C-alpha cells in the first residue's frame, strides 16, 4: 500500500527537489535541486534519511497538506509559522503524524524557503536520476492543489529520532554574500570593482529558482556581450544595461553575459533565503576559507 500526502493548498511556489540532475548539462538540462542545499540536507539528517532524498521546497507562503498515512516529518530552513492541526509547532524538530493530521503555515518569520522532509523521502517521478521538478523534464512543474504525493511507507516500529537542533540565524540574516572572481572579472574597470565591493545591493522582484536580478545599475557597463559559454548556479552576470543577475539552481546551462563573479556554495544557500527588497554586500572569499575549501574537499 502506498503512503500519500494530499495537497489542500499549494502555497506560493512549492516543488519536490533533491540534490539535482547531473550529467545532462550538455543537452541543455539545468542542474535544478534544492535552492538552499544546507537546509534541505539538514531536514534529511534530522530524519536519519540519506542526505540526498527528495524533500518539498516551499517558498514564502507555505502549503496546506493532509497526511493520508503515518510518517515522521521535519521542517527546516525558513520559519513560516508552521502548525500541525492548527497548533503551532517548531522548525528543526521531528514530529510523528497519523492519518488525518493537517500541516499548515502562517506568517513568514525569517528566511524565504523552507524544506519539508519526510521519513524515507518523497517518491515522485524520477527523470535522469533525479526527482527535482523542472518544466519539460518532469511532468509536474510545481505542486498544485489536489496533488497526491507519494511518500515512503513508514513502519511505526522504527524509533522516532528525537532530533531537534538550533540553526545559526546568520544563515538567514547575513548581509554578506561571499564570492570569488568569475572568468570575466578582469573586464570590470577599477571603478566598477570599487562599486561592486562597496555598495549595498538590493534584490529586484525578478527573482525565482532560475536567478535573482539586482536593482542597482553598475556604471558604464559595456554594451557588448560575450560569445555564449557555460554558466553555473552562483554565476553573477553583468548585462549590457548594467544590471547584475545571480544565477540560481534552475539556471540555463549557457549564457552570453559577462561572468564577473561566482558565489561560493554557502553564499548560494544564503541567497536562496533572501527575497524581494532584501539587501546585501558582496565580499571576496577570504584566502583562509579558500584554502580550507581546497584542503577539505579533495582527496587524491
Amino acid at each position, binding site marked *: 500500500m502506498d503512503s500519500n500526502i494530499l495537497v489542500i493548498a499549494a502555497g506560493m511556489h512549492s516543488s519536490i527537489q533533491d540534490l539535482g540532475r547531473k550529467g545532462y548539462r550538455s543537452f541543455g538540462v539545468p542542474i535544478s535541486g534544492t535552492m538552499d542545499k544546507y537546509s534541505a540536507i539538514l531536514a534529511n539528517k534530522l530524519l536519519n534519511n540519506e542526505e540526498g532524498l527528495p524533500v518539498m521546497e516551499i517558498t514564502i507562503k507555505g502549503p496546506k497538506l493532509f497526511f493520508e498515512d503515518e510518517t515522521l516529518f521535519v521542517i527546516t530552513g525558513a520559519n513560516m509559522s508552521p502548525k500541525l492541526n492548527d497548533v503551532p509547532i517548531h522548525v528543526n524538530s521531528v514530529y510523528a503524524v497519523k492519518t488525518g493530521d493537517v500541516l499548515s503555515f502562517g506568517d513568514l518569520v525569517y528566511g524565504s524557503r523552507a524544506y519539508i522532509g519526510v521519513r524515507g523521502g518523497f517518491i515522485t517521478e524520477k527523470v535522469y536520476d533525479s526527482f527535482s521538478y523542472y518544466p519539460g523534464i518532469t511532468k509536474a512543474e510545481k505542486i498544485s492543489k489536489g496533488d497526491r504525493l507519494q511518500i515512503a511507507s513508514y513502519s511505526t516500529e522504527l524509533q522516532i529520532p528525537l532530533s531537534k537542533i538550533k540553526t545559526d540565524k546568520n544563515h538567514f540574516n547575513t548581509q554578506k554574500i561571499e564570492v570569488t572572481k568569475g572568468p570575466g572579472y578582469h573586464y570590470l574597470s577599477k571603478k566598477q570593482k570599487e562599486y561592486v565591493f562597496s555598495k549595498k545591493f538590493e534584490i529586484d522582484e525578478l527573482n525565482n529558482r532560475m536567478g535573482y536580478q539586482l536593482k542597482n545599475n553598475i556604471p558604464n557597463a559595456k554594451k557588448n556581450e560575450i*560569445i555564449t559559454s*557555460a554558466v553555473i548556479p*552562483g554565476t553573477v552576470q553583468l548585462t549590457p544595461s548594467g544590471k547584475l543577475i545571480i544565477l540560481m539552481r534552475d539556471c540555463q546551462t549557457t549564457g552570453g553575459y559577462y561572468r564577473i563573479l561566482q558565489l561560493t556554495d554557502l553564499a548560494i544557500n544564503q541567497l536562496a533565503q533572501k527575497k524581494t527588497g532584501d539587501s546585501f554586500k558582496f565580499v571576496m572569499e577570504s584566502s583562509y576559507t579558500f584554502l580550507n575549501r581546497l584542503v577539505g574537499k579533495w582527496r587524491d
Partner: protein
Amino acid sequence: METFKLVYKPLGSIALLIEWPQEINTSILWNISLFREEIHIQLPDRVLETVPAYCSLTVFFDTKKIKYSSVVKRIKEIYKSLPNEKEMVSNIWKIPVCYDIDFGIDLKELCKEKKLSQEKFIDLHSKSLYDVYFIGFLPGFLYLGGLNSKLSQKRKAKPRLKIEKGAVGIAGDQTGIYPRESPGGWNIIGNSPINFFDVEKDPPCFAKSGDKVQFIPIDREQYYQISEQVEKGTYKIEFESYG
C-alpha cells in the same frame, strides 16, 4: 589539426573553463569536439560532465577525487598529445520545416525588409548546411552556425511572451528551433513538427555538437502527417553519416 593557444580558468570550485580564441568557426568546433572526446576517454572517473560552447569547453570534475590544479595539469597533457587527425563520425540531420505563414509569423515582414520573395527566402534558409556547435539555452536547443548573411536579422525589440514549440527562428547571425514553448525574441519563419528533446530517451537529443543540420521544406499536409507520426513514435528522422 591546428593547435590553438588555450586559456584555463576556474568556474566556481566545481569546473574548469577552457577558452579558445574568442571567435566562431568550424576549426575551433572540430578542435573542441576532439579534445572533449579525449578528455572523457582518458579521465572517465575524474570528469563528471563537459559542456561545449562556441569557443569554450567547461569540464566539471569530481571534487572528491581530484583538485583543480591536478585537473588542469592532466587536461593540458591530453591537449598536447591530441592526435592530429582522428576520424569522427558525424551525421547530417534532415529537419522538416513548414514555412507556411501561419507558422512563420514574421516571414512576410522579414521578406519585405530583405527585399526577397518568400520562395527565395525559404530557398536560402533551406539550402545551407548548418553546423551544430552545442546545445544550450533550453533543453534540446541547438546553437547552429552557417546562416546565409542575407537572412541575418536582429532580435525583435519586444520579445514575445509565448513562442510555439518547434518554431524556427532567426536572431542575428543565428538560426534555431525552439524545442518547447518559451518566451523569446527571435524572428519566427516556420515550424518543425519533430521533437528536439525527448525525455523518454537517453540521450534525450538526436543531434550532438559537430553534427550538421539541413532544413527540408514541407507543406501543411506533410506537417500534420509527420506530427501524427511523431506522436505515435513511428517517425524516423532522416540522416546521412559522414566523417
